[in-house]
């Protein structure tokens, strides 16, 4: 066996970017494990309870960038109780002790407190980038600490977090010496901002390329900001409320004319159609456009805007774009790769929404489409078959028919064949969300054809345990399976228990699994945490008093090397 000195191995390993490749390298032998762990700079922990933070820090002492995810995905839809867990504190504390050279931290669906942010700000002298996605538990006081103590901060990116507003002064906490910002996103903040401080901050950060303002920022302020930062590449516009007869509107037009580097736009919170003309000059260069928070932009004005954006690769809109608008997208945006159509009226009958026609139009016009999230009121098998034929490159396909269990309205059939066509045609499909009326058959198709599927979301579907078993048997690369309101029970759960060791997690809520089934799973697989989330009145009862036949409302199973959890609340039972 040829001997490779460690330096050579390290040099080779340096070329490996992906976590998967590096993980593979580390399992070859002890020597390679050592080389890899000391040279690893980016660490990603997909489930914060899969491993204790101290172990991560001990294994990767020279880590520069850490990403951690907390709550399961269905927490986004209020299915996980508020204080279930996912606390950032142990991670930040462990990193402060074990990896003081940390430069980047990315947290998703975690509970982050102001104290955590202050500890973070004070513990890492080289800290450069903080990205918080769908987190909660902190206020603008925590942001003030970040602003105050993180010298050399390059990125503060807050995406869709619930942040308590404790006042506008946090932005003023960036010292005059802070000139390093490249990316600042505070679009999710609800409160007022000190606009003077913001404008001065923007003016002294020459490298600023991405700036996403919140709704409190007026057009007047936006004008001043754009005047000072014409080199922005990515802009969240703030309110954009302006009347097209005013001075402010004319200044806005000029401001956008000066932004030659803009490639991505979002925001438009209060923009009305009449002021869209101001952004026409930048449309021709746009690669990303997010109008999903702008319900007033619709109809012909929206279509006029879209027709200018022929370089668009990513588009997020509301369903008031209509099938007609989607047809315009299809004929204009030939480079489109990602489309998300969100519902604008989730409580109503939706007479102005999109249908299967819009999706078919998109598929015939945008052959490069690989990522879709589509909310609609109806879908047909024929349409899905057509879409599958036109767009074989889907890696992410999420279809949400808003009426649960709704069949094909033309044939009254389930949508098994339609989704079957998708999984057969899209050989690289990694993520799939199903909806509409579906029988076990669709799961048979998925198990047979979706070889690369990693994440599957199922709701109100299937007839029997067979459905779930098809998926668990067939999808070799499955990592995350989340199921709600399906008739899957203990037989399916226990059919192949070792499968769950190959996956990150399984979520089942409002299904037919019983306490007995979950206990059996926990007994057979000590390498898994089997969590029962029990919010009903019976939670007052001790677990022992409940019979094995008791139906489990919410089950969350995940592999872990850290047995149990020390921070689980009363209503979470870890079997």
């Amino acid at each position: 066996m040829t001997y490779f000195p460690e330096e050579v191995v390290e040099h080779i390993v340096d070329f490996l970017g992906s976590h998967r490749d590096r993980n593979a390298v580390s399992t070859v032998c002890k020597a390679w494990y050592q080389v890899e762990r000391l040279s690893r700079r980016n660490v990603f922990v997909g489930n914060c309870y899969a491993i204790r933070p101290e172990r991560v820090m001990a294994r990767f002492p020279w880590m520069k960038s850490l990403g951690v995810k907390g709550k399961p995905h269905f927490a986004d839809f209020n299915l996980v109780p508020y204080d279930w867990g996912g606390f950032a504190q142990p991670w930040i504390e462990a990193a402060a002790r074990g990896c003081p050279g940390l430069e980047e931290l990315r947290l998703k669906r975690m509970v982050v407190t102001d104290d955590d942010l202050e500890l973070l700000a004070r513990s890492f002298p080289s800290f450069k980038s903080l990205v918080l996605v769908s987190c909660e538990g902190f206020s603008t006081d925590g942001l003030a600490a970040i602003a105050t103590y993180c010298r050399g901060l390059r990125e503060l990116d807050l995406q869709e977090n619930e942040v308590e507003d404790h006042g506008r002064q946090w932005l003023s906490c960036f010292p005059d010496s802070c000139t390093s910002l490249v990316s600042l996103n505070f679009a999710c903040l609800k409160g007022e901002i000190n606009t003077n401080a913001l404008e001065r901050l923007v003016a002294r950060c020459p490298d600023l390329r991405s700036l996403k303002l919140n709704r409190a920022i007026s057009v007047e302020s936006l004008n001043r900001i754009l005047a000072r930062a014409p080199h922005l590449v990515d802009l969240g516009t703030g309110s954009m409320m302006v009347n097209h007869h005013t001075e402010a509107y004319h200044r806005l037009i000029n401001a956008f004319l000066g932004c030659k580097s803009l490639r991505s736009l979002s925001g438009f919170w209060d923009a009305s159609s009449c002021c869209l003309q101001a952004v026409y000059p930048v449309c021709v260069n746009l690669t990303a456009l997010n109008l999903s928070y702008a319900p007033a932009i619709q109809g012909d004005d929206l279509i006029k805007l879209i027709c200018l954006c022929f370089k668009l690769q990513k588009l997020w809109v509301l369903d008031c774009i209509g099938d007609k608008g989607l047809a315009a997208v299809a004929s204009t945006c030939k480079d489109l790769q990602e489309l998300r159509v969100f519902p604008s009226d989730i409580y109503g009958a939706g007479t102005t929404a999109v249908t299967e026609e819009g999706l078919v139009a998109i598929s015939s016009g945008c052959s490069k489409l690989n990522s879709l999230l589509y909310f609609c009121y109806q879908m047909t098998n024929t349409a899905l078959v057509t879409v599958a034929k036109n767009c074989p490159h889907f890696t992410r396909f999420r279809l949400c028919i808003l009426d649960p269990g709704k069949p094909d309205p033309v044939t009254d059939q389930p949508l098994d064949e339609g989704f079957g066509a998708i999984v057969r045609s899209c050989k690289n499909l990694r993520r799939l969300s199903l909806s509409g009326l579906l029988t076990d058959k669709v799961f048979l198709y998925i198990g047979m054809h979706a070889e690369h599927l990693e994440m599957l979301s199922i709701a109100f579907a299937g007839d029997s345990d067979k459905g779930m078993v098809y998926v668990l048997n067939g999808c070799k690369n499955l990592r995350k399976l989340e199921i709600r309101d399906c008739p899957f029970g203990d037989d399916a759960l226990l059919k192949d228990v070792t499968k769950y060791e190959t996956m990150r997690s399984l979520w089942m809520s409002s299904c037919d699994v019983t306490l007995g089934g979950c206990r059996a799973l926990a007994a057979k697989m000590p390498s898994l945490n089997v969590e029962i989330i029990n919010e009903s009145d019976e939670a007052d009862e001790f677990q022992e008093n409940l019979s094995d036949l008791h139906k489990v409302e919410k089950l969350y199973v995940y592999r872990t090397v850290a047995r149990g959890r020390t921070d689980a609340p009363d209503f979470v039972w870890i079997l």
Partner: protein
Amino acid sequence: MEAAGESLRDTELRLGLPGTDAPEKPASTVTRGGKRALPEDDEEGYAKSNKSSSEEEQGEGDLCCQEPPAAKAQVVGWPPIRSYRKNSLHARKVEGEAAGLYVKVSMDGAPYLRKIDLKVYKGYKELREALDDMFKCFSLGEFPRKEGCSGSEYAITYEDKDGDLMLVGDVPWEMFISSCRRLRIMKGSEARGLGSRH
């Protein structure tokens, strides 16, 4: 009307599980349909809504304008939209229902109507300028620059929440916005009576 209502119910899209008739969860307080909630206390409703928002178009005049339909069953966690986005949508819906926003504007003799968002304008002057701009292709004369300017061809009137036809400009702007349901630009002889100052 009752019969129509019942057949409507059959075709109604619902968020409950198939086969269920009654809502499983307590009905949501948000009623669907195109009807804006007419605020009992205008001033209060307006005072809260100093941040404007644009109301989603809800298909006025179709299905459900006549009677407030039963609120839909809300399935927990459905549709699968992030809470942040749902809250954002809902907050704007609530804001939008606090005061009149998008109103139709008709002009006598014009072949079609327009719609404007009253919240975008800071006062009567801006409103008149906007209407001038919007309808100048139809008009032969100028719009009255100040209220009660007689001798002009047109008068801007509005229908308030009681259904009465009123001259624009009499009441404070904030009160006007909260009570205006639609605008009508009247011309010629009809306007003269309204246009002159008393």
